[in-house]
Structures are given as structure tokens and as C-alpha cells.
């Protein structure tokens, strides 16, 4: 739109590092311009009337105007149309922001009081560090440019055994990506972005979480594809020393007796098989159905009786609430996802 002096509006926003961010900017610029126009109309009208109709004497006669339907219709209808346009435009961009892209690279995010942990599928865990002077170095998530990324996020307790403590809400916000998602204890939330710019971008926690809220900073470092592969291979930063998340989950599968009831080859046993489970359509005894996503799997692990798949009986599986840590549960889910 030619009449948008884009530069003015963009000045205040951080550089747009995704395509979505650019589209958000367009809406923002439109809003700034149309707001300025409305504001100027109102204020110029106001000042003009004050000057023009200044009281001259106590006996001034004033016009007795009670309404004017045409005018009233216009100033209701024009804003209404404008608002509907903005709604539709905003809805479209929001929808694209929130739809999981194909083949997104998944990274797990654990938020806790008051730090971030970024865990890659190969088990590599990025945590914050402390420099020589005791100053905190925020954790840096490294991602390749132009590749869609899906963050699977949850909030965990500092010490899983502390009964008095609670995991609290956090929110993952990258201003340069114009995107944000609250992180809720007890469930997974997702955030998608496809960075189009190489560089370092700030991560803020934007849901109030207590004393260290404003110190809960992080970085996203967007690098070229090659650099990312090198980084993953470990030429930078030490490489994976740990088991992958799925392998850790497999160990739990074997040691915590999942193996007794859940096959990996498609055979139904006491419980449904894990083969092809993730992403499949689940039909339940009570006639409802859902897609098996991370939150469904989590609920089934912690409270198996919440939803019983057709053809199986309830009360066969113990609750693992309090038996497995949040990280264990996530690892088991990653293992289930790997059994295709």
C-alpha cells in the first residue's frame, strides 16, 4: 500500500526475522496509519470547535441538535467495516502463525523458576551458564535459517521432589519473530517459527513468574545450514554426550514395565501398541475421539483411565503421576513418537 510510510512505523519494532513477522508488521503499519488519521480527525475537530464556538456571553444561544441519523450511521458503519477488515486480516496471519509447518525441527523447551532449558532430540541440553564474574550467560538455542522449528514447551519444577514448590506459568517471547506462547505446567504448548534472518535474537519470559522474572532471558541464534550441521555434529560446543531423548524414553519403557502391556510391533496386548500411535486417530469407549498428540500421550501416561481406547478395558494401568518426572514423561513421549 503506497500510502503507508512504512519506515515511520517500523522504527519502533525490532527487525523482522521471520515472514510472519513481516506480515504482522504490515498490519501494525496499517493500524498506526489509520489510528493517526482517526486521531487527527478527532483532535482537529475538537480544537476547531473549541476555537470557533468559544463562549461569548452568558446568554449565548446554542443550536438544538439532538441527532442526525445519516451522520450517526456513517460514524458507526465506517469504524465497523474497518474493524472487520482488521479482524479478518489479523485472523489470517494468526492462523498461519499457529499452524504446524510440515517437517518442523522439534526442540523441547523446559521453563522453570527462573531459567530456560533447550533440549534437542539427540539429547543435547542447553542451559544457562555463569561467567568468571558470576554473571549469568543466558542459554542460546541454535537453529538453522529458513527451516521451520516447532518448540514443544512445558514448565517444570526446580526440584521435582519439593512438595511445597509449584511449577508456574511462563511465556516464550521472541520480539523479532513477533510470536509468543504461554507455558503451562502439566501440559505441552507449542510455538512455531521459521527464521529468515541469520543473527542473535532475544528471548523474554513474558508471563509473570516471580522474583527472577526479569532475569529469565534467553537467546535464539539463527545460523546458516552448514554451521548448524557442524554445531550439531559437535565441532562447536562439544557435541552430544548424552543419549537421545527417545533412547532415554526407551530405557524407561523397559525398566518401568511399559513393555509388559504395550508392544512396539503393532500387536495389541493388555494396552494398545505404541507402533504408529503418535498422530493417529484414537476412538474411545465413550464414543469420543482425538488425535494422539503430546498432551494426549501425557494424560494417558499420568492418568490412564481418563480416556480408554475402544476394545480395551479400564483400570489396567497404574497412574504414573508422581512416579515419573516431567522430563521422564517427555522422554517416553519422544520414544513413542519414534516408534513408527
Amino acid at each position, binding site marked *: 500500500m503506497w500510502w503507508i510510510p512504512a519506515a515511520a512505523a517500523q522504527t519502533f519494532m525490532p527487525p523482522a526475522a521471520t515472514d510472519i513477522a513481516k506480515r504482522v508488521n504490515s498490519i501494525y503499519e496499517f493500524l498506526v496509519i489509520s489510528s493517526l488519521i482517526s486521531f487527527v480527525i478527532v483532535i482537529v475537530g475538537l480544537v476547531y470547535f473549541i476555537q470557533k*464556538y468559544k*463562549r461569548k456571553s452568558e446568554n449565548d444561544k*446554542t443550536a438544538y441538535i439532538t*441527532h442526525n441519523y445519516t451522520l450517526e450511521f456513517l460514524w458507526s458503519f465506517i469504524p465497523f467495516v474497518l474493524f472487520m477488515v482488521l479482524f479478518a486480516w489479523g485472523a489470517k496471519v494468526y492462523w498461519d502463525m499457529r499452524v504446524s509447518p510440515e517437517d518442523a525441527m522439534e526442540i523441547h523447551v523446559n521453563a522453570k523458576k527462573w531459567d530456560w532449558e533447550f533440549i534437542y532430540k539427540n539429547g543435547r541440553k542447553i542451559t544457562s551458564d555463569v561467567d568468571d564474574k558470576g554473571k549469568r550467560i543466558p542459554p542460546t538455542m541454535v537453529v538453522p535459517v529458513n527451516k521451520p522449528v516447532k518448540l514443544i514447551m512445558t514448565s517444570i519444577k526446580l526440584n521435582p521432589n519439593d512438595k511445597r514448590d509449584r511449577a508456574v506459568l511462563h511465556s516464550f517471547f521472541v520480539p523479532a519473530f513477533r510470536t509468543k506462547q504461554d507455558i503451562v505446567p502439566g*501440559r505441552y504448548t507449542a510455538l512455531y517459527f521459521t527464521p529468515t534472518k541469520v543473527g542473535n535474537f532475544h528471548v523474554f519470559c*513474558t508471563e509473570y513468574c516471580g522474583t527472577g522474572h526479569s532475569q529469565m532471558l534467553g537467546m535464539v541464534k539463527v545460523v546458516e545450514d552448514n554451521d548448524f550441521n557442524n554445531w550439531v555434529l559437535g565441532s562447536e560446543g562439544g557435541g552430544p554426550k548424552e543419549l537421545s531423548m527417545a533412547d532415554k524414553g526407551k530405557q524407561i519403557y523397559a525398566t518401568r514395565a511399559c513393555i509388559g502391556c504395550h508392544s512396539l510391533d503393532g500387536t495389541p496386548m493388555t494396552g494398545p501398541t505404541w507402533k504408529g500411535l503418535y498422530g493417529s486417530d484414537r476412538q474411545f469407549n465413550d464414543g469420543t475421539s482425538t488425535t494422539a498428540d503430546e498432551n494426549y500421550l501425557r494424560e494417558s501416561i499420568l492418568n490412564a483411565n481418563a480416556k480408554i481406547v475402544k476394545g480395551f478395558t479400564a483400570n489396567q494401568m497404574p497412574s504414573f503421576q508422581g512416579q515419573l518426572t516431567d522430563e521422564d514423561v517427555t522422554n517416553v513421549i519422544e520414544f513413542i513418537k519414534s516408534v513408527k
Partner: protein
Amino acid sequence: MAGAGSNYLNHEKGIMSWLTSRDHKRIGLLYFYTVGFFFLLGGIFAMLIRTELFSAGMQFTPELYNRFMTYHGVIMVFFVIIPGIPAILGNIIMPLQIGARDVAFPLVNLMSWYCYIAGAALGVASLFMGETVLWGIFGGADTGWTFYTPYSIKFSAANITAAFAAFVAGFSSILTGVNFVATVHKLRCPGMTMNRIPLFVWALYATAILQVLATPVVGITVALLAMENIFGIGFFDPELGGDPVLFQHFFWFYSHPAVYIMILPAMGVISELITAFSKKTIFGYTAIAYSSLAIAGVSFLVWGHHMYVSSQSEIAGLVFSILTMFVGVPTAIKLFNWLATLYKGSIQMQSPMLYALGFLFIFTIGGVTGIFLATIATDVHFHDTYFVVAHFHYVMVGGTLMAIMGGALYWFPKITGKMFNESIARMSFVFIFVGFNVTFFPQFILGAMGMPRRYADYLPAFESLNRISSLGSYVIGFGFIIALYVFINGWRKGAPAPANPWGAKTLEWTVPSPPPHENFDKIPTVTAGPYEYR
């Protein structure tokens, strides 16, 4: 009936005559003193917040900052802005405007003030509870005024007490609401049809409906929170099988309508001021009256726009976005109607009118930035940043506080029987208006840059704008000190006020200033609308 010269201020004497008074005007003044006290307290917390944020790095401690932030919010929302206009100006003026001797239930009216006092006492007490963070005596809640779970479930007496204080203060709001609905329906004087009541009364009526219907929800929510804490029943705590996001739904189901409880009465005051000081009938009486009801109605259906990124479903987010856009329309209608009222008027720029025009200026900015937040894609960026802080201060402070100040000055001669010093009152406006914009406009930019709210510390890149903002807040503070002087000086030394110093047409100006104990010697009969300026 006492003799000539007797009015509601002097017809009974002694402190007990005030503490047990059922006169709506006296109860309004009781509210004025107490709300005024909490406004000063909340203002001090605001200054402390801005002092912490004056520079990057910590001036106080994060623990202290979080308590300043919490108490500023709790006090200003629950103890100042919500009761502000209805309980002070509404109580004193509304029965006068409809030609009634008092509200429908005078004793309930007194009771509502005691609920307020009980809530306020609990709120102050909570400052001394919980983990102490200052001088070994001050602790207090650190949850923010929203009390979001699971953070607020951490077994802290201070958090629960502060939430309970809001719960008790809520009853004061409900009682006022019930009273006003009954009063508007039953006590209008002969000839005062619903189409002839002043727009301030219409606004209070719409507000009262919200108070009655919405406030119980916050009560229920706090009760559930208490049951969770005391009996370990899981409502919001994921470790007990609860859902923390459910709390946000409950909270905003009340607190969004509460936003309109704060702003609708302000809009009513503005309608009175604009007509009185332009000596012109209101443009679009019906549109303004019914748009108040429309705003009140739609306000129940938009709570989810506080939760676009809370993990509520995308579909829900879209529905709340379009419903929120609907609120914009009646709001725009009001603004244009006020503007049209000025057209061909006889405008006098007295200090109450300055505040009313200041309201139009600030509220326009607050209104258009609301659309930035209703548009769901941009809200994802702005949510929980300083953009939101700036927006709601433009609406709540710039809107409601401007209206409180304008209304208080406008009705000051009626309430006290004295005139205030006009030129000092104008000076207070200049400081408050300029200070306000200097404080809050930079916060829009900080929000666009991505600075999150409720941060005790920030990146160095945000420092210069924060500094401007902090300086502005001191200017506002100075403006309110001047305003306080205007009130005290006017009451003590002001010249006696005539019955109708502004030449206004509504009924309260037909009785002497200050009004007699039961308002009217003889109940008036009305034959025309409220703004018959010709």
C-alpha cells in the same frame, strides 16, 4: 426538618453521625476520604515502581519491586477505580439527578462502605504477612493484581489475604450495584422517564448491572482458590489434577466486565461536563444511553482476549477477537457524539471542561490502541508487553481519572457549598495531563520494541524511554498534590457557592449548595429532558 441554612453537612454533628449516616451524600463523602487515601497509597507505589525502573539494573530488590507492582495494581483497581466514580460521585449525585430523597436502600449503602473498609483493612494487613522483604516487617503478596495460578498457590498467607481483600471489597461493589439498579427503577421523580434521566445515571445504571452480575464470579474464584489451599481440592493446581488456565477464564470473566465498571461511569461524567460547559443539548442521547448498555452486554463475551496466547484454542481466540471488535463500535459512537455536541455550542474552558477535553484526547489514544490489541495477530506480539500497560493506563487513568477529576471539580460546589480556586485547578490539569502523556506514551514504544511488563529490570536498550516515563510520573504526582491543595483550600477558604454556578440544567443544580439532608423540600416534577439548553 431543621431550619433554614441546614444542610446535609451540618444537620447532625459528631463523628458517630457520620459513621452511622444513611444519607447518600455523607456515605459518598466517606467513600471520598477512604478512596482518596488509597489513591495516595497506590500513587506512592506507582512512584516506587517508576523509581525502580528509572535506570537499568536494580535500585531496590526484585522482591520489593514485585510487591510494589502488586499493591499498585490491587489498590488502584479494587480500591480506587472500581469504587471511584459510582461510590463517590454516583452516591452523592445520582439520587439528586433523578429527583429522589436518597437511594433505595440507605442502610445497604452504609453497609457497602463497611465492606469496602473491611476489604481495605485486609489489603493493608496483607502487607505485613508472608515472607518479609523490608525492615523485617513488610512482606505482602507478590502475585500481581491478577493472582494467576499456580503462582498464587504457594502457601503464602499474604497472597490469599490480598485475594480475599479483593473478594470482600467485591461485596461493597455488589451492594452499590443492587442499590443503584433499584434506585433508578423505583425512585425517579414524577415525569422522570427513562428517556429523561441524565446520561450519568444511564452510565451508572449500566455499570450497576455489571457490578451485580460479574462481581460474584471473582468471589467464587477466590473461594475456590481458598478451598484449594486449605482442603487440597484440585481446581487450578496441575499437581492436584486442576487446570491453571481455568483460573484465568474465571478471573477475566469478572475482570473484563470490571474494566467497563471502571470506564462506563467515567463516560457518564463526560456527557454531563460536555453539555454543561458547551451549554448545548447532548447530541445523540439515545445512542449514548444505549451504547452504554451495549458495551455492558458485549463486555461479558470478550474475556478471552486477555488469553490469546494462554493456550486456549485458536478458534476461541478468533471468536474473542471479533467480539472485541464489536466493543469498538459503541465506543466510537460515544466519542463522535461528544464531539458533535461541541458543534455550535457555547464553549467555556473552565477546569472541569479542561479535564473532559483531556479525557477525549487521552481516551481517543486509549481507544485506537485497543484495536491494536483486539487484532489477534498483532496482539500476539503486544501481549504482556508495555504496550498493554500503556493502553490500559490510557483508558483507565487517562479516561477514568480525568473523569473523576473533572467530575469532582464540577460537583465540588454542590458537594461542599464552596467554590474552588479556578486558576490553580487549571494548573493541576496542565501538570496531570502533560505528566500523564510523558509517562505513558513512551510505554507504547517500549511495548512495540518488545519490553515485557512486570520486569524489575530491563535491557540497557530500554533505558532512555523508561527514564522519560519515570520523569513523567513525578510530574503527575506533582499535579495531584496541586489538585489536593485545590480541594482542601477550596473547602476551607472558598467563596460560598450559588445553587447553580455553571448554569447547568440537571436537577441537582436546582437545590441549594450544599443540598439539604433529604435533598428536596418538595419532590420535583419533570416535564422535559435533562439537557434543555436552547
